[in-house]
């Protein structure tokens, strides 16, 4: 009986207040979509970190004819220098850090270059002599890049030591920024949602003040009086959360599964399955948002 009663009260509350309830749905929808987008950016960053950091290599570029570095003043790397570098890389001193070492000749570098820039016209103008030969060093622990950098960057015959992480971290920085921006928008929209829910509950409480007044007089419990209002807000917010989840899922299907994965096959992307992990979080967040803001409003506007 009580359940049926509360449900019918919620129904009449929503009917009377339809436009406000709709705006609550829309605002929570937008705010939670941005919350979810920020979450997806973070998931993607973690995914890429996990994927790339395992594959990160340190590249020791050796001097060529046209190297401009001071360490290359003596001209291109000599046979002896190359042998010394290789010997040092494979020595016991670096054994704890170095996993594997491969040598890439200028011809091999040209092949890689042509692969990488297959669609670009500069391919035809580049010759093997312009590309440096290098040692590709994969590390036991990618964080220990500094050790190799310090040990080899001033070695004779070495042009430069570069770590792919520099490049990756720039990407991650941008993605982090994007997620911060999404979170900021989410914050503002959430604030709007809270205010709007509070206003909606106030209006609803005002339009039902006769009922609540009578409920108090005949001894209805606080829960029976307040629950319909709280649930009204919570239901609206949960609908907003469901819409946000559906939007994020649809966007990830369309953008990631449908486009990014095919366009950048080398990159690890989050799957739309992972988006589903966000759904319970968003729904819970929406429910909490509405529950707490309506509770606070009710304490002021519905006397019990």
């Amino acid at each position, binding site marked *: *009986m009580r359940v049926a009663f509360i449900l019918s009260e919620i129904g009449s509350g929503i009917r009377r207040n339809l436009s406000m309830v709709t705006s609550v749905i829309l605002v929570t929808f937008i705010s939670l979509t941005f919350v979810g987008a920020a979450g997806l950016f973070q998931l993607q960053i973690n995914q890429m970190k996990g994927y790339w950091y395992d594959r990160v290599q340190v590249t020791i570029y050796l001097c060529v004819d046209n190297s401009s570095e001071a360490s290359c003043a003596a001209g291109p790397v000599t046979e002896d220098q190359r042998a010394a570098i290789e010997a040092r890389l494979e020595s016991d001193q670096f054994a704890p850090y170095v996993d594997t070492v491969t040598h890439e000749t200028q011809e091999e570098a040209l092949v890689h270059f042509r692969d990488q820039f297959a669609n670009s016209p500069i391919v035809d103008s580049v010759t093997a002599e312009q590309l440096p030969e290098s040692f590709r060093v994969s590390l036991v622990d990618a964080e220990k890049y500094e050790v190799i950098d310090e040990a080899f960057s001033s070695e004779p015959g070495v042009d430069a030591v570069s770590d792919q992480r520099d490049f990756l971290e720039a990407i991650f920085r941008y993605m982090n920024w994007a997620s911060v921006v999404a979170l900021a928008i989410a914050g503002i929209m959430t604030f709007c949602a809270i205010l709007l829910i509070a206003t909606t509950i106030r209006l609803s409480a005002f339009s039902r003040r*006769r009922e609540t007044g*009578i*409920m108090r007089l005949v*001894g209805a419990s606080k829960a*029976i009086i307040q629950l319909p209002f709280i649930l009204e807000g919570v239901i609206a917010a949960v609908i907003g959360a469901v819409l946000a989840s559906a939007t994020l899922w649809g966007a990830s299907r369309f953008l990631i599964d449908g486009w990014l994965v095919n366009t950048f096959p080398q990159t690890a992307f989050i799957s739309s399955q992972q988006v589903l992990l966000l759904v319970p979080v968003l729904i819970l967040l929406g429910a909490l948002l509405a529950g707490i803001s309506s509770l606070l409003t009710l304490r002021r506007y519905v006397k019990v």
Partner: protein
Amino acid sequence: MIRFDDVTKTYDPTSQPALDAVSLDIDRGEFVFLVGASGSGKSTFIRLVLKEDRASRGAVYVAGQNVANIPSWRVPRLRRGIGVVFQDFRLLPNKTVFANVAFAMQVIGRSRAVIRETVPDVLATVGLEGKDNRMPHELSGGEQQRVAIARAIVNRPGILLADEPTGNLDPTTSMGIMKILDTINQNGTTVVMATHDDDIVNTMRKRVVELRGGSVVRDDAQGIYAGRPEAMAG
């Protein structure tokens, strides 16, 4: 049933208290008229019984319990034991007569079966048989007040508080309402009725408590409205 023990209620510390050191004892099953001009403290009396307000000093006992000691989550239980009727009926305009009375049972969790059984009985008690499906605006003032009374007593409270229940009704209709209140009283419910209506008080010959400026100035076992002109003024 209701005991006021030296109760003072001050809303605004700079002005005169709404109730000033009132001591009053109303027994189970009594019928008491609370008379006095507007602002004499009748409504404050009713609010204190319902624990809508707290006494500034002294103690209010309802059914043997000091209401100051009732925790807020138990206040609904206190109010279930008290029915209230107002001058302005306070019916829900979008609900039928039956639904208005049933509402009081729904919100305290009574089952549908119990409601279906009880409401027609109570409507019969107040003389509204066959009007279950009328809307409040289709009823006369007297009939609307009967619905309000039915709602107030449907949960069988031990006390019925009536705050000027005949204030909006003509004398004939008012007497009809008084008959109903009398019947309810005879079934064992304590009735406290605040009123301005001297005809009713003089006809009923019940206990009369007169308040003036927040103090009890008269308490007659079978009183009349009193001939004092200032009491008539409100």
